[in-house]
């Protein structure tokens, strides 16, 4: 239901301006919609407050803390108490001073963490290569020197041959103490073990072959090549321990400082919002005016709170909206607790206009019904019921709402499961001789399809009726004529079908024909040629509801296929595993597909008949909860 709104104007002396804004922020009911008065300048310090807010957000994100839902109103109020009476400049100065030391410590900790992680990654990469030369180093004799060189694959053989030639010429024996490992980009690492004293000559030969020494000296300085693997392993161990200490330190800091910084951020966010509103007030030298929209049921309490706090310092005026203002009034929805979670569906669209219709009640009624009809299995419904209960206990508001929606879907799934006689496909029939209360949908396809088309006709015609009512209420002749013409034409076809089916006398045909003519007149009068196209579209919309039967049928068949694995493989591990896996797949497909298609039937087929989503969302001036600021 769309709540009736009241235009509230608050006039006061400039001295009480800040207090009034703060009180309205606390009350959190006024959707601010200013008049065309001159806009004041940004208060001093607003820019620095915004900058500080961003800095704190940066600190919070650096800490990796995100438990915004855990910040209570009390924690923000305690910050408010501490900071009360300070001007924006003083506030910025105080907070910056108190955060200075923490910010430096956090930055140094994060820098050390990043540097250590980078070094650790390089060491691990280096170790991977050194591991390939482990036995090469192990067999090194004390009178020999070991070195690693980076060399291209095509030069590697040439380099080895040159080394052999050089040592043979000197009479030194060459016993194949060389090991080459290919790497990326045609480069590889060449391990060379040579008698001590020949390092210089070897280096010269390899350099001529464009080889580069790969000594890892920057990672473990002052360590000989033979001991490098051990040194790298030791360094990795040290760094890993240090990183664990840093991680623990950061975790402790995050749990200690995260909620404080979060509360501080929320406080500053509120202050910044208040300062922005203050800048947007209509000004005169000694007074101010604050205007906005407030739900009718919140008016009494708001007026009482303002009167009690400010007495005669403020003048309050309120009135119902005038017709010329309808386009500017924000839309606030209020639904009973059972249907309120279904408001989530409207979040994907712009909200209904103030003079429009809130379809939440209809969605709450039809969405679970359609979705449950598609799933139509007692077993799947029971599993979904348990999942929904779990989701409903979640801390997140959106997740809880999804849980409520799924709960309704699960109940209808079980009800339709009883109608179709399905419990994990035909398992119920096999084990408990379960029989359908209505029909078995995998056998009686045509009646189910006819039923879903009839369901579609009812749903589409309900949408048209809402469109007619909306047109009449808003005095939009074209709308109500077009929608009613469309409705009458559909109705005439239904009557015609009934006459045909009941094989009544030909004279009865005059009723649908008269209705058809009346409908066409209304349709052309309201929507012209476009109206006729719209009428054809309505028939297409109704046929589209056959998807309820089609998706349900495919789900039922897949469930039967899953159970039939038990026939093929018997009561074996393989048979049971395959059956469970296919049932799981079918469950996911059934829930996802049914939800998606039931939503689509609402968005395209149903809403298309009446919904005009060009409203403005009701956004009261209040402390933003949780992480809602992220959406800004």
């Amino acid at each position, binding site marked *: 239901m769309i709540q009736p709104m009241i235009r509230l104007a608050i006039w006061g002396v400039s001295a009480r301006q800040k207090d009034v804004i703060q009180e309205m922020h606390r009350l959190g009911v006024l959707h601010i919609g200013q008049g065309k008065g001159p806009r004041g300048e940004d208060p001093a310090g607003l820019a620095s407050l915004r900058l500080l807010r961003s800095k704190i957000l940066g600190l919070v994100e650096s800490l990796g803390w995100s438990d915004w839902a855990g910040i209570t109103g009390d924690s923000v109020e305690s910050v408010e108490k501490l900071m009360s009476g300070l001007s924006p400049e003083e506030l910025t100065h105080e907070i910056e001073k108190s955060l200075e030391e923490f910010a430096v410590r956090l930055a140094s900790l994060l820098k050390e963490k990043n540097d250590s992680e980078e070094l650790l990654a390089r060491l691990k990469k280096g170790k991977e290569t050194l591991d390939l030369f482990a036995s090469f180093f192990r067999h090194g004799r004390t009178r020999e020197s070991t070195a690693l060189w980076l060399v291209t694959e095509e030069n590697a053989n040439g380099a080895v041959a040159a080394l052999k030639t050089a040592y043979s010429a000197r009479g030194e024996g060459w016993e194949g103490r060389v090991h080459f490992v290919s790497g990326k980009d045609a480069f590889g690492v060449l391990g060379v073990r040579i008698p001590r004293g020949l390092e210089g000559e070897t280096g010269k030969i390899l350099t001529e072959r464009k080889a580069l020494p790969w000594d890892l000296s920057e990672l473990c300085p002052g360590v000989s090549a033979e001991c490098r693997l051990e040194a790298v392993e030791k360094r990795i161990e040290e760094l890993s321990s240090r990183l664990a200490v840093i991680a623990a330190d950061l975790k402790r800091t995050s749990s200690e400082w995260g909620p404080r910084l979060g509360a501080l951020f929320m406080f500053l966010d509120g202050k910044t919002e208040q300062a922005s509103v203050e800048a947007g007030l209509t000004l005169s030298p000694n007074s101010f005016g604050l205007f906005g929209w407030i739900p009718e049921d919140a008016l009494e309490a708001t007026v009482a709170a303002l009167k009690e706090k400010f007495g005669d310092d403020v003048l309050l005026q309120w009135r119902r909206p005038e017709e010329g203002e309808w386009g500017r009034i924000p839309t606030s929805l209020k639904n009973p607790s059972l249907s309120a979670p279904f408001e989530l569906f409207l979040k994907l669209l712009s909200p209904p206009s103030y003079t429009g219709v809130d379809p939440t009640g209809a969605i709450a009624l039809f969405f679970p019904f359609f979705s449950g009809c598609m799933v139509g299995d007692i077993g799947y419904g029971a599993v979904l019921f348990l999942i929904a209960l779990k989701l409903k206990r979640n801390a997140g508001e959106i997740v809880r709402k999804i849980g409520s929606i799924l709960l309704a879907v699960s109940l209808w799934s079980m009800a339709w499961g009883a109608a179709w006689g399905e419990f994990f496909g035909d398992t119920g029939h096999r084990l408990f001789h379960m029989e359908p209360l209505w029909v078995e949908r995998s056998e009686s396809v045509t009646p189910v399809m006819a039923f879903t088309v009839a369901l579609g006709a009812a749903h589409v015609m309900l949408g048209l009726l809402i469109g007619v009512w909306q047109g009449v209420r808003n005095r939009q002749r074209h709308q109500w004529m077009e929608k009613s013409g469309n409705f009458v034409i559909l109705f005439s076809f239904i009557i015609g079908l009934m006459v045909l089916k009941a094989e009544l006398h030909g004279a009865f045909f005059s009723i649908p024909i008269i209705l058809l003519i009346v409908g066409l007149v209304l349709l052309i009068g309201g929507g012209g040629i476009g109206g006729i196209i719209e009428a054809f579209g309505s028939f297409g919309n109704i046929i589209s509801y056959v998807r309820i039967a*089609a998706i349900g049928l495919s789900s039922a068949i897949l469930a039967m296929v899953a159970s039939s694995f038990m026939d093929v493989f018997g009561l074996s591990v393989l048979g049971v595993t395959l059956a469970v896996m296919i049932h799981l797949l079918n469950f996911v497909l059934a829930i996802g597909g049914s939800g*998606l298609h039931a939503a689509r039937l609402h968005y*395209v087929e149903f809403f298309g008949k009446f919904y005009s989503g060009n409203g403005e969302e009701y956004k009261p001036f209040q402390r933003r909860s949780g992480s809602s600021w992220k959406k800004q």
Partner: protein
Amino acid sequence: MEKAIIAIAAALAVGIPAIATAYAQAKIGTAGAGTVAEKPETGGTIIILEALPETMVILGFVVAIMLILRFA
């Protein structure tokens, strides 16, 4: 022979719309992925748009079922 022709007809009734649906969904999916990257809040709308072309294959499936039930 007649049954084989009916089976082929049913297969075509599902297969051709399935190809059309796949083509449309691929196009919508590509554009949708780009949109979601720019504006993550449009995710829900994109999912609905992605489901729109499925009407073709669902109606094809219904036609196939009708063919099998009526003629096979």
